[in-house]
């Protein structure tokens, strides 16, 4: 089987796999946020940036090829990841101490892995709405990192088009395809894959917060690099 290397470690791959897919199959962790193995990759968050033969590219879209030398956890790449993560934190309201997703949050866990301890950039404290119109779900848009996983899950798995990103740059935001923009009046159903794919704390089942005790939450039991299935 053909192979390439990540941080000098040989990685075998199947034809058609990306660097991230091959790394995941080999149990090698490349930090990432907007990629999910169930959906098509689009390389938007840039957290999975690696250096391939001296050139930076997103590991979730770059095809694996024999003989590539890939740098993953070097100090400068980790520093770049911290910059990206920091921007995500300050552009939303990620108040981990009171967030029920804390301990099971992909963003929080990636930040811990990348050793992002505090933000130097000014917090933006965006004023976005909380949509509690649905009887069983609350959407807290202040935490959205625009990864589009719910958008893809709704389209690619649920066969609907409930979610979409609108606006550009700093004004980008998640919107709901409903006449009044409210979840309750969309095609959303609690059983949708879109409801369970959010890597942060936007999608919250109502009345259930903090039911999992500290110590038993997803990333209390295993750190993110030890979890291969998502």
């Amino acid at each position, binding site marked *: 089987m053909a192979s390439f290397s990540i941080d000098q470690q040989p990685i075998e791959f199947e034809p058609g796999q990306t660097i991230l897919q091959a790394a995941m199959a080999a149990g090698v962790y490349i930090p990432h946020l907007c990629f999910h193995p169930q959906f098509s990759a689009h390389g938007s968050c840039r957290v999975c940036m690696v250096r391939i033969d001296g050139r930076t590219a997103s590991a979730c879209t770059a095809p694996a090829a024999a003989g590539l030398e890939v740098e993953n956890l070097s100090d400068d790449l980790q520093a770049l990841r911290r910059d990206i993560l920091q921007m995500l934190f300050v552009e939303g309201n990620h108040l981990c*101490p*009171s967030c*029920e997703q804390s301990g099971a949050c992909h963003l929080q866990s990636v930040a811990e892995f990348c050793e992002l301890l505090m933000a130097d950039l000014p917090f933006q404290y965006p004023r976005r709405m*909380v949509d*509690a*119109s649905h009887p069983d779900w*609350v959407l807290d848009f202040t935490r959205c990192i625009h990864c589009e996983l719910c958008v893809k899950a709704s389209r690619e798995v649920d066969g609907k088009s409930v979610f979409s990103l609108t606006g550009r740059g700093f004004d980008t935001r998640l919107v709901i395809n409903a006449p009044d923009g409210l979840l309750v009046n969309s095609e959303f159903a609690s059983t949708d894959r879109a409801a369970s794919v959010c890597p942060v704390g936007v999608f*919250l089942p*109502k*009345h*259930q*917060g*903090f*039911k*999992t*005790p*500290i*110590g*038993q939450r997803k990333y209390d039991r295993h750190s993110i690099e030890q979890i291969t299935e998502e």
Partner: protein
Amino acid sequence: MIKITIDPVSRVEGHGKITLQQNEQLEITQARFQIAEFRGFEKFIQGRPYWEAPVLVQRLCGICPVSHHLAAAKAMDQLVGVDQIPPTAEKIRRLMHFGQVLQSHALHFFHLSSPDLLFGYDDEVRHRNIVGVINDYPELARQGVLLRKYGQEVIRITSGKRVHGTGAIPGGVNKNLSVAERNSLQQDIDQIVDWAESSVELMKQIFLHQAEWQKNFATIDTHMLSLTGQGGALELYDGTLRACDRDGKVIFDQQSCDDYLDLINEHIESWSYMKFPFLKTLGVEQGWYRVGPLARINNCDFIRTPLAEQQRQIFKSQQSDGKPVQATLAYHWARLIELLYCAESIRELLDDGDLLGDELTAQGEMRLKGIGVIEAPRGTLFHHYEVDEQGLITRANLIVSTTHNNQAMNESIRRVAQDSLSGQELTEPLLNQLEVAIRAYDPCLSCATHALGQMPLQVDLLDAAGKLQSRKYKQAGN
């Protein structure tokens, strides 16, 4: 008229300023204790899902977060239509709260107040602190540290973290105790009860050794408010409201916490971020009162656990006429009786098999209003929330322990200044005494306004014309 301002105050969390006003006869006519910061939890939780509240609002305080956590959780029980949570949940919560009060009282007494009581308020600042206690009374300091550590361990096991955990959720708790966790707490509990008993003895000796001074220092005659349990028992987690007047006569009793707005109102002064609660029937001028250990031990008819009850009777015998003990420094004595009560109660609870039970939550029909009242270490704590049909908080009213004692702290400060200020010059010993008075009530004023960080103190003395005559500062950590 002369006005004195003290800024900052040490070994008290927050940033305090005291302004004293004198008249032409150099009598103190007014004392205003101000906390400079404002945090506004009631406002910024509006629009948040209700189930976040117990975890969010506990950030009001780093010393007694569990009390806020549980008061909010009790209010959330009502929101989810649960009047009685399962026995396992209630006992886990009670255990958590006994751990909270135990650790907070240990911190308050040993770390923050014992230097004043053991060395005297005129002792050198560099020596009058917990390090001084460790050097001069190593065994006592060790016991204090370990008592606090035990309380924090109870909190960690029941809520997941020593500070700011997540144990209580609407309708119950998110975990029970495992056999291993129960056994680990049982291992040291006899020692904890012994140390707690010794600490009451120590405080009793300190109080009686300087009885005259202790009885008069910062002392004011006030009404007292607290929860009481069944039959008038000392109660920290759940009960009904009782208020007694300066002579110990009942003003009201067995009042449901849900009716607190009929009993208490809050007065606002333009010079303070803290409000001034008062008993409605008596009005602003006459209706202010005290809460906390002194109020609870005075108000209750008995304590359920034998050792603490024995100590309560000795405490009460200080007042031969049966009236309440009004000495402000007796707050510390009452505090340690409660510490003993918590230790004994934890020992008793750990033998209860319900702690290991599996029924953790109950669920009912959603309601739109929830009121949770609890006895936090420093006094009665009210959490009142209202939500909309979608479960988002529309209104919150939090009356915290320190706020209840606001007027009383001002009066105690005035009493100290009146007794100890001579002339128009602020002195170091006076400043120390003012801090000792504040600390009897509270080492942590952050919840009331709600300040962050250590608390420096500034004292200003103003004359009859409002002109600054003297100013004294004390930096944080001194």
